[in-house]
């Protein structure tokens, strides 16, 4: 009887010792068999984020306090330098303002001339970024607006300056948006006035790179990059950024919108997502 109990205990101890190995095997199996972008996984992710986002945003608060404190001190130190830069910038902006006014008048006249009608398909939602999450293999933002607020998958995200990403997952109250800097982001674009066709590919740095469809093409520094509208995910001719670094193989693009430190986003539905199959959205 005693030996039986002893044997059972020994077996139990051995199982306990082997349990980590079993879990290592299970984890390996999951890694090999389950695609992280499969619909079921995406659904679980969205549900989990619904619950975890409030916790994470509370956890993040002290970090934000420290960050804003250090930024305040930094601003104080560099006030004089910033002031000179701002004056210079202001002068430049005044020139642009004049130019914009001229163009606006021209635009109104042309619209009247061609009897142009504004599309009423465009819908806009303002949302707060509650979380900027990411790591080695990606980066995304969680915004406090979901199905309840009318957010749809594929809506484009704009900061104060310009376009920087699109909605990939929509939950009940929260949605996740993928910036153009993410590994998974491939945006069809035109480069420069010659409209060279390329893809803007994210690699988790602040500056995504260009991959031309024609290998002979190249980009020059300060060339403007704008959406081509190819595949219908992004409307055409939306300015995205400018070529910052000339590199024959992969020129880097500095986005017009600085995605670090964004607090609010404008989510705009151009009515394009309705025309697309869900598989098309998944693949981009």
């Amino acid at each position, binding site marked *: 009887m005693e030996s039986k109990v002893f044997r059972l205990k020994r077996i139990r101890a051995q199982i306990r010792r082997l*349990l*980590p*190995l079993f*879990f*290592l095997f*299970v*984890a*390996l*199996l*999951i*890694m*090999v068999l*389950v*695609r*992280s*972008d499969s619909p079921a*996984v995406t659904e*679980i*992710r969205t549900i*989990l*984020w619904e619950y*975890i986002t409030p*916790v*994470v945003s509370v*956890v*993040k608060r002290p*970090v934000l306090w420290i960050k804003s404190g250090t930024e305040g001190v930094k601003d104080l130190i560099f006030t004089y330098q910033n002031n000179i830069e701002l004056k210079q910038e202001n002068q430049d902006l005044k020139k642009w303002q004049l130019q914009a006014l001229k163009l606006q008048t021209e635009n109104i006249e042309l619209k009247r001339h061609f009897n142009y009608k504004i599309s009423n398909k465009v819908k806009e939602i303002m949302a707060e970024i509650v*979380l*900027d*999450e*990411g*790591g*080695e*293999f*990606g*980066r*995304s933002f969680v915004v406090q607006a979901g199905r309840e607020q009318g957010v749809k998958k594929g809506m484009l995200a704009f900061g104060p300056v310009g376009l920087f990403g699109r909605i990939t997952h929509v939950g009940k109250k929260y949605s*996740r948006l*993928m910036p153009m800097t*993410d*590994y*998974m982001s491939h945006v069809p674009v035109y480069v420069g006035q010659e409209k060279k066709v390329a893809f803007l590919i994210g690699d*988790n*740095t*602040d*500056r995504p790179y260009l991959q031309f469809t024609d290998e002979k093409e190249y980009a020059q520094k300060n060339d403007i990059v704008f959406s081509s509208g190819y595949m219908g995910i992004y409307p055409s001719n939306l300015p995205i950024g400018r070529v910052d670094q000339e590199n024959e193989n992969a020129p880097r693009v500095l986005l017009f919108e600085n995605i*670090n430190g964004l607090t609010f986003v404008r989510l705009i539905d151009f009515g394009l997502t309705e025309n697309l199959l869900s598989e098309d959205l998944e693949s981009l």
Partner: protein
Amino acid sequence: MKTKLLKNFLYYFFPILWAILFVCIGVIPTRLFQNFHQNIPFILVVIFYFALFGSNRLNVLIVFGLGLLTDFLSPSAILGLNAFIYVIMFFMAQLFKSYLYNLSFCHLWIIFCILMLFVDIVWVWLARFTTNLWVTPSFWFVQYLFTCMFYPIIVWITAKLNLYTKDV
């Protein structure tokens, strides 16, 4: 009766709640370099600590679950990668538990750094095979350095809280 229940709850669930908090911290990216965003896996310190000093409350199943939770919360992460890494850390600490249990704080820190090096190498290679992406050395090095650097602080706080939950 109620206080006893609360005491037991605190004692048994403190490691899990504490670990979940570190999972949440882990998914917030830190901007350490100008262009890079990365998250530091401080949770590995917590797993190492509880594998040695509280494995009856934080077992391998929970560690595996925490790993999966991190995988689900990280954008575009490979599902199962963090679960694998967390279980490896737990397994290694458990394997040498009898030897490590009596070591001093500083010695444990050194051992953790060595274990972390091994775990990070496994992580880089697994990421390479599953995603075809190489993690840049600076990325990897900073992650390693920061996790090891923060070890004393995290262990100190964890130990204090652990003792407190025991004494309540």
